[in-house]
């Protein structure tokens, strides 16, 4: 949908009123497009069309280049943060080879570890082929990636869905925390048989998150309270409630004096996908939920309503859509998704409540949604990328002794470049495509 723009026929310009606000940018782009794109390719082959489209500023290209740019800057950071490499730079003019070699070694090792930790380690494959290793070691990196990715899928979808309806859900963190609380309580308080227990615990997480989303939703619908402020405040409320709750009698693990709850019953834990590895059913659930959200957005009546309200609330109202009801339902749904994310975290990997049980999944969900352009499948892909960075970062830290914080820096850089498509466009001299402005429109929610 986004890749077919620049080669398109020279259409009549859009109606005059619409052209005006963006006059400075869009008008200058238009005459340039035909001269640059049209002339050289009258007898254009498939490949030239393909390459031209590839190099136009469509969403995918910008995203890929953003990742690339972030890696380049990350490489510079790796070089400057290594004292040994910096030393070689002190005699750069005398023996430039040293500096270049050292830089190359440290950067390539770091990124190789990132790759090995996130996707596959060739050494493990050979070991397995030779019979010295196990298949577990082969799939270990992927397993780690997916384990980290699963909760992010849910919180990312939560933010993305709310955004499509015109709401900026900063409260993914709070909703996820409430989700962990409810799921964990159901997980160790309810005496239920295995499968039912798991479903009940997941449902509890979903409901808890939904409740935490309902509050800002109803306040927005009824009183116009801005959802950003309300959700931020509810994040604190949820976190502090969790800190208090963990220390209560019956919740705190018996025999422990630190802040940790009773463990979730094994009947309520998300089972591992293939037995021995860490990745659990959470990622399967995440894919299913992504499909469900994609259906909800594009095929359901509610999805139509929320997209209409998100794009033009007055027109939606005029067409008989209740904006207040849509906002409320939307926040409930978004909260439920984030709550489910919290539930998979506590039922899948943590198995007990701690103050940091939800980690940063709510806030990372914001970045994931941004990276995924608020599209369900895009969000899933972005969450997996973030999971990979995280899993690879662990290995990078232990093998190349590069701080895990670098991964956070990489994530942040990727998102910055995504949020500033014009910058990426300028750096790579991409041709203008209308979809490139999509990222810039993210700010509209405020």
């Amino acid at each position: 949908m986004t890749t077919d723009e620049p080669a398109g026929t020279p259409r009549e310009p859009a109606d005059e009123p619409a052209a005006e606000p963006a006059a400075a940018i869009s008008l200058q782009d238009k005459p340039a497009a035909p001269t640059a794109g049209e002339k050289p390719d009258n007898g254009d082959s498939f490949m030239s069309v393909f390459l031209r489209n590839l190099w136009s500023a469509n969403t995918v290209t910008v995203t890929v280049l953003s990742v690339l740019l972030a890696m380049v800057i990350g490489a510079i950071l790796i070089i400057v943060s290594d004292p040994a490499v910096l030393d070689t730079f002190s005699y750069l003019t005398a023996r430039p080879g040293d500096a270049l070699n050292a830089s190359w070694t440290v950067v390539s090792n770091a990124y190789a570890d990132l790759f090995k930790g996130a996707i596959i380690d060739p050494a493990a494959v050979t070991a397995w082929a030779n019979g010295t290793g196990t298949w577990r070691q082969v799939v270990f990196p992927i397993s780690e990636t997916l384990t980290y990715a699963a909760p992010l899928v849910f919180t990312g979808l939560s933010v993305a869905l709310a955004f499509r309806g015109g709401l900026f859900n900063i409260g993914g963190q709070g909703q996820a925390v409430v989700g962990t609380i409810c799921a964990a309580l159901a997980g160790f308080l309810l005496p239920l048989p295995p499968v039912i227990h798991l479903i009940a615990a997941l449902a509890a997480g979903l409901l808890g998150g939904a409740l935490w989303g309902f509050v800002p939703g109803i306040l927005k619908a009824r009183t116009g309270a801005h959802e950003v402020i309300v959700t931020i405040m509810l994040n604190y409320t949820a976190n502090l409630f969790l800190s208090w709750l963990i220390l209560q009698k019956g919740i705190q693990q018996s025999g422990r004096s630190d802040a940790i709850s009773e463990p979730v019953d094994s009947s309520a834990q998300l089972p591992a996908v293939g037995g021995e590895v860490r990745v659990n059913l959470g990622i399967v659930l995440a894919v299913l939920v992504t499909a469900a959200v994609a259906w909800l957005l594009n095929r359901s009546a509610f999805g139509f309503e929320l997209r209409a309200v998100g794009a033009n609330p007055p027109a939606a109202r005029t067409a008989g859509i209740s904006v207040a009801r849509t906002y409320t339902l939307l926040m409930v749904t978004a909260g439920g998704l984030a709550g489910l994310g919290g539930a998979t975290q506590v039922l899948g990997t943590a198995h007990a409540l701690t103050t940091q049980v939800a980690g940063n999944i709510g806030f990372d969900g914001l970045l994931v949604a941004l990276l995924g352009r608020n599209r369900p499948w895009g969000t899933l892909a972005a969450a997996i990328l973030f999971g990979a960075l995280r899993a690879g970062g662990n290995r990078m830290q232990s093998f190349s002794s590069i701080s895990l914080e670098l991964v956070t820096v990489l994530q942040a850089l990727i998102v910055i470049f995504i949020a500033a498509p014009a910058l990426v466009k300028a750096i790579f001299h991409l041709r203008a495509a209308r979809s490139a402005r999509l990222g810039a429109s993210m700010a509209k929610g405020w």
Partner: protein
Amino acid sequence: MANDHIDLTVEPGEVHALLGENGAGKSTLMNQLYGLLQPDEGEVLVDGVARTFRSPRDAIAAGIGMVHQHFMLVPVFTVAENIALGAEKARAGFLDRRRARREVLEVSERYGLPVDPDALVENLPVGAQQRVEIVKALTRDVDLLILDEPTAVLTPQETGELLEVMRGLAAAGKSIVFITHKLKEVKEIADRITVIRRGRTVSSVPPETPEEELASLMVGRAVNLEITKAPAEPGREVLKISGLIVDDDRGVRAVDGVDLVVRAGEVLGVAGVQGNGQTELVEAVMGLREPRAGTIQVDNEDLIGMTTKHILRSGVGYVPEDRSHDGVVKEFTVAENLVLDQYDRAPYGNAWRLNPAAVATAARERVEQFDIRTSSPDATVSTLSGGNQQKVVVARELSRPLRLFIAAQPTRGVDVGSIEFIHGRIVRERDVGTAVLVVSSELDEVAGLADRIAVMYRGRILAIVSPDTPREEIGLLMAGITEPTAAPATPADGGDPASEGPAGDDADDDVDGHGVAEKGIK
């Protein structure tokens, strides 16, 4: 390609009208003159010297000024500050406000353009904002002034004033390029008319050319400007409004005791200057605004308290006056916009899910039936011209059985060809027995479409007259002047509910002339 080898010559002291449909390339041409766009080929000569404009700054330096269709003013700045903007004359690092003020007063006096330099722009009515734009251009000492569809946002009165100003400017030796697609204004003011169609100059004609000929030049085929319709055969009373009182967003009384009846098979036209309560009246009927008092019934069914969805369901079609704000979702495709208020009804879907196949089929049919010019039903509505966007709205509302059809400003900002089409559709809807309520601030439109005309002024129906009534008389009524002879012709105004209105917040008499005009901006 938006402009294909266009030639245009403007003489000093001339009002040169540039006539063309939406998307014909008028604005593109003018943006090149003003340095916002660079031509791929050809040149611009100013006083015989070839110039290239890389930015508006170059254009202004060459004596070319432009007033955009959408004003480029900072709402929270005063008039003087806005005019100083971009040409700030600093003195010792400080903005020279006094000089800016002086310039404003000087220019406004010289050309007879009354503006208050200290007024905040956001508080000014649209017409006054436009004067500010013109003054802004004139303070830059321009010789050629481009006005891009200046009347699209103005009330008839303001339009009259603007035309007066243009005459004055031309008399003072300034050249004016006047972009529009309104034929009447062109004939009234232009010294020469250049018609543009699909990026080419079709012809350059004198203003004496008859309107029909101008219209067909614009559209490229014969156009029927007259609305032809058979006499109405009014049936049962469909819409009954009595004693309706509605407040606007600021809590000011907008509809002040309206009684109206619209019968099946007739068009009731509501005439009036924009901002006299027509918007609020229609919104109250549609359930978009809660009335303070009164009743609204469709076929004896009470509408008050019903949701908009319910009202639409009960067989009411509605074309809102502000198309891009209320009518379409620009990011949605044509197909989605065509079912914007029926997406959850069979066959397009149900309360849970949509039926994309049915939506697509219906969209293909409507695009065909209503002659919507789009590259595909899956193109977003924002890629369509204004006229075609309006056809999307009209198509959506007229493609289900209706009891009542309400069209507010159905042809505002719509090109001539589409106007003809939309008018034809409205008449056809009447002929199948739907009750039709048309609200328009274009008197010609109301007079052409309506079987009865209700004139609205300050929230009241002053009179209900027949469309044969002389224009002057309707014009006077629109200005609130009821002649003694016209007084007996107002039976509909019967029980005057002014006295029963709740304890009077008499915000009505805040600013006499301006309060009314101000409502127009929002």
